[in-house]
């Protein structure tokens, strides 16, 4: 630590590996002051102008907005709001081309400028030293400040850190050719910048503040030295010009000799780096309550007749800027499709990208619009690549500021060997383009790396997605299996319950007090008994039974005899218990009802009988064909059906009874309401009838079910497997 300070005070700095010295071309614009431009007619504000997430919209189409009014807000800390750069009316919120090499469209707010430039009420802070840290951070966050050096990292996150800060480094290197925006800003606004640095000092309380500036900006150096002469903590470090000194890790290396590890952030070594333009924006926001709505942009290149630095409102389309600076080929790039379009580059010549549409708006991170002439930058006009094979000269490795192996990377990138690329630390590449600049084979090395980086990121996303899909698939499989087991158990339980109720019913049916069943059984028993006394040739079944049986064989006769015996036994038992329920019945009305019900039930029971008998018949016929087991099964089924019919009949009788009982009670309490009672009785009767009908249907269904019971388990298992 001591030695670092000593070296800094002696202005002996370290060196980073590699680097290049491209022609600076800064004189085009460095001598001229920053110009104010007339307001454009329309502003296009992309919702997202930084790394992170976009905020939620606060305005609607047709809203009138004032200068400085927030247009988005967010609860997410990584989201940064945007503000109206001037007053006007929101004319549209739609997708539009944004400043991105892909030329893709993103959601943008269109503001029709009303040329009044009316501010929203501002709260100017005279003395920022009285503000608390949280207040300052909130102001910075609300003002939508994101790193203006290029990456656009939300500033309020960078300055809201817990660990102790040794060095606050202000990046004023501006190492890329052509760009002089920060240079001019330092010359003209050095006081404001120093105010911004003081605010950062208050927030971070670093041990030292170092302003790193390249020696090709003598005016800016003088201005800064003048502004900081009373502040001991701040030292202006004049560095030799070399590209890319302005890289975050490179600047740290030069100033402190420390190297930030691969994958680590400077904050882990107690260092925070901020751009000068960001410092200016911070002072504007905290002191003047001006959110980030404008920035200095260098408009340069020999294709412009009046290259100059200008104050640009965010959202100004590039076409407006080109108009104002006299774009040489008087025809704008839009109207000349057949001729090779004069290229317009956003950003510097080494790290910038061609913009495909001059409606692209200026955003928080755009610092330069470069319109080169053909003699100045022939490669920008020539779309065909002059790339030849790598001759393994190794110059790229010599200039790489991240000490990577560019040619190895290139081969792996061409082979799409992502593993090898990661092994070669591709993600430490800062896209500076020094390798491509020195390559004698004109291989666009940095482009290969950009592609590879995007591919690897995409692959990582796919991997995450496939992992998620796998988890979901397995969870689903588990769930289905559980469901299946649960269903099987339910089936088993239901079957068991069915069996239990069946047994119960037959048992009950034996001892049941159903007068209907008893009467039925009695009749049947009598008939059977009488039949038995007749000759064997005659049939033991009642006349209502299916005539097919009339021609039945001896075999069936024998069986029917056994049946008859069983029925007789049952009838006897029923007859025994017969009296009890009848005794319970007291009212004459109820008795009537019972009689009616009995009739209905008799009918029904008969029908049921018929059906059971017919099924019996069927099974018998089958048995004649030779299958005795089938016969047995059919019999069981028939028995089951019979038992069910009985149980149903019993149940039904009970239900209407209770209903009518209730009615009875009502009738007695009402006393005089005889009429009502009668109506109620009639209703109950009708209901009973309707129920009887329904039951009949149900019984038919049940019979069918009983006869196809063997099939059911198959079916259900089929359904499950589906």
């Amino acid at each position, binding site marked *: 630590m001591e030695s670092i300070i000593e070296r800094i005070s002696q202005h002996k700095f370290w060196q980073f590996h590699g680097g290049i010295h491209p022609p600076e071309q800064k004189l085009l614009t460095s001598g001229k002051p920053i110009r104010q431009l007339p307001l454009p007619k329309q502003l296009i504000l992309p919702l997202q102008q930084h790394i992170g997430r976009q905020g939620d919209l606060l305005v609607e189409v047709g809203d009138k907005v004032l200068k400085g009014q927030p247009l988005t807000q967010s609860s997410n800390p990584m989201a940064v709001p945007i503000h109206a750069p001037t007053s006007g009316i929101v004319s549209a919120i739609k997708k539009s081309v944004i400043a*991105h090499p*892909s*030329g893709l469209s993103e959601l943008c707010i269109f503001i029709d400028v009303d040329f009044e430039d009316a501010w929203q009420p501002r709260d100017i802070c005279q003395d920022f030293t009285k503000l608390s840290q949280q207040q300052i951070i909130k102001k910075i966050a609300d003002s939508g400040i994101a790193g203006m050096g290029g990456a656009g990292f939300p500033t309020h996150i960078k300055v809201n850190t817990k660990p102790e800060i040794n060095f606050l480094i202000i990046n004023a290197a501006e190492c890329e050719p052509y760009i002089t925006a920060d240079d001019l800003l330092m010359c003209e606004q050095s006081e404001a910048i120093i105010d911004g640095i003081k605010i950062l000092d208050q927030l971070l309380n670093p041990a030292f503040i170092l302003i790193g500036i390249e020696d090709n900006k003598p005016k800016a150096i003088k201005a800064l030295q003048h502004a900081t002469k009373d502040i001991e903590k701040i030292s202006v470090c004049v560095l030799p010009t070399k590209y890319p000194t302005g890289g975050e890790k490179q600047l740290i290396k030069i100033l402190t000799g420390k190297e930030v590890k691969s994958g680590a952030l400077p904050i882990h070594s107690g260092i925070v780096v901020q751009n000068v333009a960001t410092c200016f924006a911070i002072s504007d926001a905290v002191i003047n309550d001006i959110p980030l709505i404008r920035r200095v942009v260098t408009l340069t290149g020999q294709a412009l007749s009046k290259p100059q630095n200008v104050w640009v409102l965010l959202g100004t389309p590039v076409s407006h800027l080109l108009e104002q600076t006299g774009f040489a080929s008087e025809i704008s790039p839009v109207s000349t*499709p057949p001729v090779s379009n004069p290229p317009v580059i956003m950003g510097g010549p080494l790290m910038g990208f*061609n913009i495909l549409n001059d409606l692209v708006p200026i955003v928080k991170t755009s610092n330069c619009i470069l319109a080169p002439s053909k003699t100045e930058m022939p490669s920008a006009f020539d779309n065909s690549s002059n790339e030849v094979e790598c001759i393994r000269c190794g110059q790229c490795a010599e200039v790489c500021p991240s000490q990577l192996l560019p040619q190895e990377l290139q081969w792996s990138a061409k082979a799409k060997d992502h593993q090898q690329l990661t092994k070669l630390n591709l993600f430490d590449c800062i896209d500076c383009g020094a390798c491509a600049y020195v390559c004698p084979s004109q291989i666009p090395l940095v482009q290969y790396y950009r*592609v590879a980086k995007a591919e690897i990121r995409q692959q990582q996303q796919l991997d995450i*997605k496939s992992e998620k899909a796998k988890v979901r698939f397995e969870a*689903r499989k588990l769930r289905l299996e559980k469901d299946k087991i649960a269903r099987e158990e339910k089936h088993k339980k239901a079957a068991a319950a069915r069996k239990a109720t069946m047994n119960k019913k037959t048992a009950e049916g034996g001892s049941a007090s159903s007068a209907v069943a008893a009467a039925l059984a009695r009749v049947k028993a009598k008939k059977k008994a009488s039949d038995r006394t007749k000759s064997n040739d005659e049939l033991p079944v009642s006349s209502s039974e299916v005539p097919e049986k009339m021609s039945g064989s001896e075999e069936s006769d024998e069986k029917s005899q056994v049946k008859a015996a069983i029925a007789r036994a049952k009838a006897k038992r029923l007859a025994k218990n017969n009296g009890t329920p009848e005794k319970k019945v007291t009212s004459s009305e109820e008795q009537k009802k019972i009689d009616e019900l009995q009739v209905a039930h008799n009918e029904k029971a008969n029908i049921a009988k018929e059906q059971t008998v017919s099924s019996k018949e069927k099974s018998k016929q089958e048995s004649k064909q030779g299958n005795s087991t089938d016969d047995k099964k059919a019999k069981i089924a028939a028995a089951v059906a019979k038992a069910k019919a009985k149980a149903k009949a019993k149940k039904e009788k009970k239900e209407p009874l209770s209903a009518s009982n209730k009615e009875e009670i009502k009738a007695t309490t009402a006393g005089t309401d005889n009429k009502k009672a009668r109506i109620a009785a009639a209703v109950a009767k009708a209901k009973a009838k309707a129920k009887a009908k329904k039951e009949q249907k149900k019984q038919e269904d049940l019979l069918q079910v009983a006869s196809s019971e063997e099939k059911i388990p198959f079916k259900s298992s089929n359904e499950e497997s589906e």
Partner: protein
Amino acid sequence: MNILIAILVLGLIAALFGAILGYASVRFHVEGDPIVEQLDALLPQTQCGQCGYPGCKPYAQAVANGEAINKCAPGGEDTIKKIADLLGVDVEPLDENHELNSSLGNGPTVAFIIEEDCIGCTKCIQACPVDAILGAAKQMHTILIDECTGCDLCVAPCPVDCIEMRPIPETIQNWQWDLNKIAVKQVD
């Protein structure tokens, strides 16, 4: 005598190593078949069943048991290459029967339910291997784009043909540099 000693020494050494190997085989016994897990990790996990197996894991199991490695259509040649590398076999071209015959090209797609046509039959929900369809009986269904693997399995069961496969829209987040494309792209 010398011969006897030699035999004895060699025999002892053999016994010693045998004991070590025997111990190691017990001590470092590997449960399950790690190759299946590795294969499963290479597969795209779309669970689409285009390989003829009900999901990626069953196919991984089958490949481990000697099934052809070229049946994964969503994985394409990359996956075949990786499997070939892992198993040390030759790379085979993608099985013709399993080639994607999608008119949308080979770009990733997601299912999309035309919601006004949906009758809420839940058939697609039952078909989705990753539970990426939200809905209930007689309610409109919709696809969770982030969970959809683009496996296509929900398209066939739909009785009203209201599901279609759509390419994933290109955004800044998933945009891929294409050097050739940039070179020929003209300003609008």
